């Protein structure tokens, strides 16, 4: 094991995850105003549809696939033990990966060519898209070239990821893997590393709480029951900026 390997598969994941956690908390609390993704649908909606929809749903399924193999390796292996189910599993995953790739390419072309979008482009957006593009291409390459990914991910990669989580990194299995796969793993941690500094942060504020919320929201500046009672203070909270 070279020292570079050692750095990339033991130290780097910790650096990336720490930056991800601390950076996200910092950004949410200090720069909360910009915790979102700048939608350009209002400026250009038609072409964007063909990019953003396959991109997001592709990303959702591909990400969940990785997450499941990481969380329940035994279950995934059991499912894959039947060849039909294995092929269905890989087929679905790969279809969504292709959707993700196509969507991403359409979004990049749109970003670079549509005159109105140039008004809201930033260099960081382009950088993120390039990183994602590289990662997705590597992923598709692995899926085609190193079968069957969902099985060996569960068998070899999942234990490695768990070892990192348990603060006892065991990179041996990973270091022995082909270069493409190693690059994909480093790419994944790199995405975590840059996450808090990009528009990717909008994933963290996905509005699930809407499901449980009543439709109408009414906010009172003071407690309407206490306000007319001279014995209770009407406000107990101090404003945030004083």
């Amino acid at each position, binding site marked *: 094991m070279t020292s570079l390997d050692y750095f990339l598969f033991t130290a780097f994941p910790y650096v990336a995850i720490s930056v991800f956690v601390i950076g996200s908390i910092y950004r949410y609390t200090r720069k909360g105003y910009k915790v979102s993704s*700048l939608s350009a649908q209002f400026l250009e909606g038609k072409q964007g549809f063909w990019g953003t929809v396959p991109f997001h749903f592709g990303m959702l399924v591909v990400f969940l696939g990785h997450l499941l193999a990481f969380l329940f390796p035994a279950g995934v292996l059991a499912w894959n033990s039947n060849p039909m189910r294995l092929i269905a599993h890989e087929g679905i995953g790969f279809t969504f990966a292709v959707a993700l790739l196509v969507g991403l390419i359409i979004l990049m072309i749109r970003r670079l060519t549509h005159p109105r979008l140039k008004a*809201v482009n930033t260099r960081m957006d382009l950088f993120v898209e390039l990183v994602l593009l590289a990662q997705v291409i590597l992923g598709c390459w692995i899926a085609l070239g190193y079968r069957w990914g969902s099985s060996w991910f569960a068998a070899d990669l999942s234990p490695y990821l768990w070892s990192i989580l348990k603060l006892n990194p065991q990179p041996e299995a990973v270091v022995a893997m082909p270069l493409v796969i190693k690059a994909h793993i480093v790419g994944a941690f790199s995405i975590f590393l840059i996450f808090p500094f990009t528009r990717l942060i909008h994933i963290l*504020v996905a509005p699930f709480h809407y499901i449980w919320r009543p439709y*109408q929201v009414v906010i009172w500046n003071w407690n309407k029951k206490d306000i007319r009672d001279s014995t209770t203070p009407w406000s107990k909270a101090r404003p945030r900026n004083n």
Partner: protein
Amino acid sequence: MDIRSQISMVFHLDKCIGCHTCSVACKNIWTDRKGAEYQWWNNVETKPGTGYPGKWEDQDIYKGGWEKKSNGAGNGESGDIKLKGAGKRKGLGNIFHNPNLPVIDDYYEPFTYKYLDLIESPAGDDQPTARPVSLITGKHIDIKMGPNWDDDLGGSPDYARNDPNLKNLTPAEREAMFQLEKMAFFYLPRICNHCLNPGCVASCPSGALYKRGEDGIVLVNQEVCRGWRMCVTACPYKKTYYNWHTGKSEKCILCFPRIEAGLAPACMHSCVGRIRYLGVVLYDADKIQDVASAPEDELVNRHMDIMLDPNDPEVIEAAKQNGVADSTIRSAQASPIYKFVKEWGMALPLHSEFRTLPMLFYVPPLLPVMASLSRANNAEQAEKLGAKTKFWSDDWLYDTSTEELFGTIDQARFPLQYMANLFSAGDTDMVRERLMKLMAVRIHRRHVTVGDVSKEKADGALHEAGLTAEMADAIYYLTALAKFDDRFVIPAAHREQAIEMMEFTGDKKGNTGFGFKEGTAQRGL
């Protein structure tokens, strides 16, 4: 009973002269910023016309507001209505791409002119011109659309004739509206209605939009908004706007900093026609669901019935119990809104059928409806003035005489159905009633001031419209003579009790509008 107070408004359309002062006052204070150039929180449209954004009233296109699925009684049954184009299922399902979002071209691409070219172009054979440039891309554009593109019936074939409110008029009625000699129009100033059952609030996945409990003003918390854009879809009046530069939604804030300081909102304060009235009303919040899901033919009346009588001792007691301040109750008693909407029954909400329970009411316009053309004999006049004097050689006269009393309302230049589509969910009787009141007040005042209408005739007209002479005089006063403090009865905001009072305001000094200081299009570093 859950009594709350709500800032409510009346716009008297007979008085609007379409000067757009209100729009400009608003723009200069709030939306003179990058990303908000196209936003007109206050806009004034010509009716008939397609409005801003184009055809906003057509919810088959924009999918705004609530819709009632079953035609049940709606009595106490909540959840009977659903957001048409947003809501929990549709909103989250379409979170990556909202198919019902209007795009900038539905409003207009904001532009300016290259004025410097007028001065700096090199000398040549041609007059230099200031070409229009887009405020988004900075490139030259051909202007296709602008604010008030169809002002005063401009481009009628494209705009006025496509007014969604013409939908259930007969072809003959439509043709009559667009005959050159009979053509008439009026102005419809629009701001956010600060609804009781706001679609915008209900649609926001982040919960950034909220209604203020104390005065019912509907606001977007800019810090919480994540730019999911569902409110833009869900507001049937298209009064929430997406700022493409900050990636946040914005809307009319009813100048709440001014209201809290006891000032009228800028659009109302500057209104040249003095058409605007603002005051507080008491209502029962427990009834909102119920009223919003009422059957269509009861909707308008039940909507107005949600307002409670501020002089009723029971209401006062319940309001106090619920923490409504004494000063607010006193304001509600002096409110011009309660008078126009309830006491005199002269105002109607705009498009009740969207079921958001708008709290801005309109007195429908009488003049463009009633005036007709008749032949006059100008011979005598012409003789007096002599040949050299210019006079109106045409012998057609714009006639607003009251000879025929109410007969003319039904032969009005605007089919009543058109007005009813706007103001009473299609019920022509309600509009006729209001127009008759407006007419009766005129006849009464004509009797008082000019005297060429007999007392019997005037009293008869009042009686038929359901008014008394005192009421008519009060209406006349509030319509024609009212001073600032009569038109705007603003409840004390009790800033001494508001927590913002203790906030450090220094970091907002020197800013205008929302006061952004950072390059807001950026996300991340």
